[in-house]
């Protein structure tokens, strides 16, 4: 399913905020068509790692490789240009605009004609493409002309994910996509993540919810105090192993193996 080279590779990345070592020589990778769950306690460095990949923080040390090549991501637009899309927890949708407008926000299609400023938005084209995109994700939204503010939390999450796919990214980073969602809506979003994998995207899901991770992830990476405290194949591990890696209480065997390998 996946090629030999990882799509996105983070090697020995460190990041310090004043006295706090937020990331300490972190190694991390995502392959094509792979869903990686990124878990850890509050303050373990999950968000910092994602923000570093997304270009919001620049790392103090270490390297990021994308498609096998070393890249510098110093601004969010750098990440977007490479094909790394990020969906943040607070979604960043405009509730006063409809689904089409939100999907195309900042990347509106305009009709051909003279004048950069006066040209008309190509609503027909945008509506058509938004409709295609959403139906390819089997998203359940009554109409693409619905105001986003009237949608449920799960639907809003779906719109946010659809928007991130507009630039045809290769890697999608999802920050707490199921936080504050009910059971059926969580299911919708997990199914959506599954469809992203089917499209061959590399998906990174940050979450607190271990049940969700086991349901959707191929691999689970545990961060603890800014370090990688475990890297598990979801199929061959148990929740206890992951929990002990998160809390650091009597770290499991797989965990120690991984740590040893990495130190070599």
């Amino acid at each position, binding site marked *: 399913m996946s090629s030999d080279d990882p799509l996105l590779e983070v090697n020995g990345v460190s990041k310090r905020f004043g006295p706090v070592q937020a990331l300490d020589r972190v190694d991390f990778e995502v392959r094509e068509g792979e869903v990686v769950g990124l878990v850890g306690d509050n303050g373990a460095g999950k968000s910092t790692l994602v923000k570093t990949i997304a270009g919001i923080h620049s790392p103090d040390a270490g390297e990021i490789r994308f498609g096998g090549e070393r890249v510098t991501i110093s601004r969010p637009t750098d990440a977007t240009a490479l094909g790394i899309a990020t969906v943040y927890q607070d*979604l960043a949708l405009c509730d006063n605009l409809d689904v089409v407008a939100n999907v195309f*926000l900042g*990347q*509106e299609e305009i009709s051909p004609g003279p004048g950069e400023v006066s040209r008309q938005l190509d609503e*027909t084209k945008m509506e*058509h493409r938004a409709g295609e995109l959403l139906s390819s994700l089997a998203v359940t939204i*009554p109409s693409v002309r619905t105001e986003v503010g009237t949608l449920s939390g799960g639907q809003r999450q779906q719109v946010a994910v659809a928007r991130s796919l507009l630039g045809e990214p290769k890697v999608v980073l999802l920050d707490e996509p199921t936080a504050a969602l009910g059971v059926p809506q969580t299911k919708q979003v997990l199914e959506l993540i599954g469809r992203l994998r089917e499209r061959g995207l590399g998906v990174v899901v940050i979450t607190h919810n271990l049940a969700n991770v086991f349901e959707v992830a191929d691999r689970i990476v545990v961060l603890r105090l800014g370090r990688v405290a475990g890297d598990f194949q979801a199929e061959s591990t148990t929740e206890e192993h992951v929990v002990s890696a998160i809390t650091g209480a009597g770290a499991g065997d797989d965990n120690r193996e991984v740590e040893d390998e990495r130190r070599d």
Partner: protein
Amino acid sequence: MSAATEDAAGPAPEDAGRVSGTRAETLRRFVQGDLASLRVVLGLAVIWAIFQLQNDRFLSAENLTNLMLQITAVGLISIGVVYVLLLGEIDLSVGAVSGLAAAVMTVLGVRHGWSPYLAIAAGVLVGTAIGLIQGAVFSRFGVPSFVVTLAGLLAWQGALLQVLGSTGSINITEPKITGLANTFYSDAVGWVVAAIVIGVYAAVALSGHRRRVAAGLAGKSLAPLAVRVALVAVVAIVTVAILNSDRGLPLALLILLAFVVGMEYVAKRTRFGRHVYAVGGNVEAARRAGIPIDRVRVAVFAIAGSMAAIGGILAASRLLAVNQNSGGSELLLLAIAGPVIAGTSLFGGRGAVWTALLGALVIGSISNGMDLLALSSAVKFMVTGGVLLIAVVIDAIARQQRQAAGRV
């Protein structure tokens, strides 16, 4: 007219099973204020009925023509105010800017003998420049727009006194300038304009419909479109018929309508307009989407300044003079109150340019009607204040209900 346009352009036709849902949705929108415009049109009808019962000259062609002339300046200023409100900001300087721009135009055109066109352009540019400055201070330094433009209100009033000099009042004798508000076209021109409006509207609506059908986004039925075109046609024909039976179609009304249509196009159909709504709806979302927030803000304040200047110039043209009170007294409050009464939210992201026209009509009708009844200024202010308060309360309630329904 635009109210119907807006609603008919809503969601694409769906299966029959969703009809009841659509109806419930319409009801909810009406209650929660998204359809405020329809409510305002009904309110306007009630106001007109009341004044007509009290004084049967109210709906006469002469008085309706006067009403149109009275609302032109406020309506033009309100167009800029709508843009500022869409951002969720406020511009308290528009009244003072309108006075200053008119004074600059008059001093250059009358005292210094500039060509009237150059003088008008200079007046408008003064407004644009002021808007650019205020917008830049607001966006660069993060000073609340309320404070920046309050400072502007004082400063530009001072500048007005400075420009007028010791005389304190200048009469406008230049016919090109006075002609702006005092030109009436013949019946034939009125009908030609009505025909052009209807024709262009129908053509634009039809080509939009064709494109949507071609893309498989809409049903083939032309009925909703025909209703919209018919509505526009009726409004245009009735308006021209009324105006023609008095002095004819006023140039001032044409100017107002042209700006309403043009700026509505910019707000609803262009990328810039979309960005204005986005910034007003959720600044953080707009920033992350890569929208140049600062540029949008500065541009919006420049629009507000320019429209204020244009409104001020029309007001001076109608008054045939500028004086120390130009752009003063209640002009600012009415220019802001109008769009809010007609459904543009004070909280940003919701509203439309044509609420400037509708709001000016409501406020203008109240003021005009009370003048006909020879009520005192005291009563006029209190009634207008009451209407504004009710409109703002409705806006706030609508917002609370949206929040209660999980829509922030």
